[in-house]
């Protein structure tokens, strides 16, 4: 009996391998919203985002922005012919060890350009895979410098952590705060990087820093907070995932921290306000985008996107159950539009050609200048929006724009 099973499984494997050889593409991975199109002129854009794991919530919001952009501009003209854009989504599970096969899956399905990912770690881990396959990738909100550094195929349309960290350090110092606690998550490149650049800038300004780390999946911050409060810090800088944020805010307040709590772009998610409740006073964060921006492009995007969100319940759920426009959604929208602009400039579906087109590209999106990439492939962004939590309306309130230099 066992022998039959063994033989059967062996045959199964052989057949599977042969099937893999002949078809050369995975049976499916198309986005649910895009039934296979009948037209032969199709260009595929890969969406490399987390839908589960620590960064699942943010990844879903970023993907929403890309899907909306796709609904706005579902076609692209190459060489006088109209091509339908097909989105291929893959879940990288916020996990660096799953990143390789997720990226490989996109490449196998024949995408011309990749967008993503939320969370710098997975982007760093998969960067070389995209470069080897000569497929350009456009990062929407991955802020760690290592994502694009030394990788000729990775581009990025948002600002970087050294910039963001300095902005927040300046902001804290200008508020008269001199002793900062920096709490980061071990093994999270985004968190550790941003914390590092904040400390560096804050020390340079003349402040002092107490550093602490927690392990991923940690839920009990009470002891850490007690020790930080006991050390006499007057501000807590805690760049971390949406999942940890409410725990950090609440337990910091429980331990008796009354000063400001600050973080980076990830905290711009309304579930944090819901979950942290009354403890979320004096919370400041840097953001990519302000939905109340008065520029025509931003206004049009916010109105259109809100309508689009309301039209479908699943979209609302993926946005954390609210109609708020997250900064990462705006960046997702811009990333898609940059990709389309590059494809049109290249007049080709070939990865290398699109990459060459990206290098000299100019594109002004809803979050400001989204191209004019420097030698590393980073967009020329020199402004961050500082926001605070408005507890009464449970929203993020725009405070000021801040740049360095």
């Amino acid at each position, binding site marked *: 009996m066992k022998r039959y099973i063994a033989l059967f499984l062996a045959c199964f494997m052989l057949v599977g391998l042969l099937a893999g050889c002949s078809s050369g593409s995975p049976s499916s991975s198309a986005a649910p919203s895009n039934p296979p199109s009948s037209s032969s002129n199709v260009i595929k854009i890969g969406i490399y985002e987390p*839908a*589960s*794991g620590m960064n*699942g*919530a943010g990844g879903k919001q970023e993907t929403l922005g890309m899907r909306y952009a796709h609904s706005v501009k579902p076609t692209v003209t190459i060489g006088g012919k109209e091509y339908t854009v097909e989105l291929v989504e893959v879940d990288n*599970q916020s996990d660096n060890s799953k990143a390789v096969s997720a990226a490989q899956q996109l490449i196998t399905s024949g995408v011309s350009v990749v967008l993503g990912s939320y969370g710098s770690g997975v982007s760093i881990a998969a960067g070389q895979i995209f470069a080897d396959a000569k497929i350009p990738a456009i990062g929407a909100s991955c802020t760690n410098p290592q994502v694009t550094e030394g990788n000729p195929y990775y581009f990025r349309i948002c600002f970087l952590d050294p910039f963001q960290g300095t902005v927040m350090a300046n902001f804290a110092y200008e508020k008269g705060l001199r002793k900062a606690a920096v709490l980061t998550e*071990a093994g999270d490149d985004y968190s550790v990087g941003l914390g590092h650049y904040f400390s560096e800038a804050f020390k340079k300004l003349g402040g002092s820093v*107490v*550093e*602490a*780390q*927690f*392990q991923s*999946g940690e*839920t*009990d911050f*009470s*002891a*850490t907070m*007690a*020790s*930080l409060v*006991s050390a006499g810090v007057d501000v807590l800088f805690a760049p971390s995932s949406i*999942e940890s944020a*409410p*725990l950090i805010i*609440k337990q910091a307040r*429980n*331990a008796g921290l009354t000063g400001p709590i600050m973080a980076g772009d990830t905290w711009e998610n309304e*579930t944090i306000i*819901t*979950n942290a409740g009354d403890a979320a006073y004096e919370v400041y964060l840097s953001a990519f985008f302000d939905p109340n921006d008065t520029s025509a492009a931003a206004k049009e995007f916010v109105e259109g996107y809100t309508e689009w969100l309301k039209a479908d319940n699943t979209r609302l759920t993926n946005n954390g159950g609210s109609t708020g426009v997250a900064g990462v959604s705006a960046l997702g929208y811009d990333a898609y539009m940059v990709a389309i602009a590059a494809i049109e400039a290249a007049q080709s579906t070939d990865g290398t050609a699109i990459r060459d087109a990206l290098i000299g590209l100019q594109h002004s999106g809803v979050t400001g200048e989204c191209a004019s990439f420097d030698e590393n492939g980073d967009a020329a962004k020199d402004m961050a929006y500082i926001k605070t939590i408005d507890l009464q309306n449970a929203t993020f309130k725009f405070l000021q724009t801040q740049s360095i230099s």
Partner: protein
Amino acid sequence: MHDFSYYIQLLLAGITVGSLYALIAIGYTMVYGILRLINFAHGDIFMAAGFFMIYISGTTSIYVSLPIVLILTVVLGVAVERAAYRPLREAPRMSVMISAIGVSYLLQNFATYYTGGLARPYPVIPFLTREVTIGSMTVKALTIITPVLTVILVVALVLLIKRTKVGMAMRAVAKDQSTAQLMGIKINNVISITFVIGSFLAAVGSVLYFSNYEQVTPMAGAMPGLKAFVAAVFGGIGSVPGAVLGAYVIGICETFIKANNDYAIFSNAFTFALLILILVLKPNGLFGEKLAEKV
């Protein structure tokens, strides 16, 4: 450098964590005492109880959902025993343990699938989370309720094991299954009762634990589960007071380690270092009975 109230604050936090581990550890120690099985799925049953509460409290009031959660968790615990451990009663111990790992894997994956893999906020249970002031400190009611409840449950359990017929049957099965069977004890029933008690305590622990940390993730049970097992080994497998003591030692030490920022990364590792130390120095734990090697 630090004032006195800082240490009191840490101690209180440690006792809360310790009590929570204790409630899970009792389930481990009882199952291990009787089946000689590390029930890897126990931590995941604890996690499942957290999700039960989230989904049920969404449809009805907290006070109605509490008993429903307790019942559902017990049903899940017994079902796991029926489906995954009972068929392997005669199999080598390694197979049963692999089955336990398989169940744990299944529960985690199912929770990830069902919840979408994101953290879910735990409902607020007012009488646990309201704040109480003692002297100069304000703490959550649960910081006080948890240790008291733990002690009450442990005393009740010890009485159950020492004074009742069921308890006697449990002790008999733990000592020698086949002899117990010859004496007319229905082994399967006793094992089911053990799982009922263990899962019930896990559910109680889950309500307290998640009320404190306010959110549940599919992996939330894995680490507390392992630590509770270490607590059970530390105290001596099969000994309920030992498991509770072990849990408090681990909870308090862990809190003090976390408070030291240079070494905070070792908070989980410390638990395992303690385990290895105790296994090497005193293989039967602090209060464990000496087990004769069966040839």
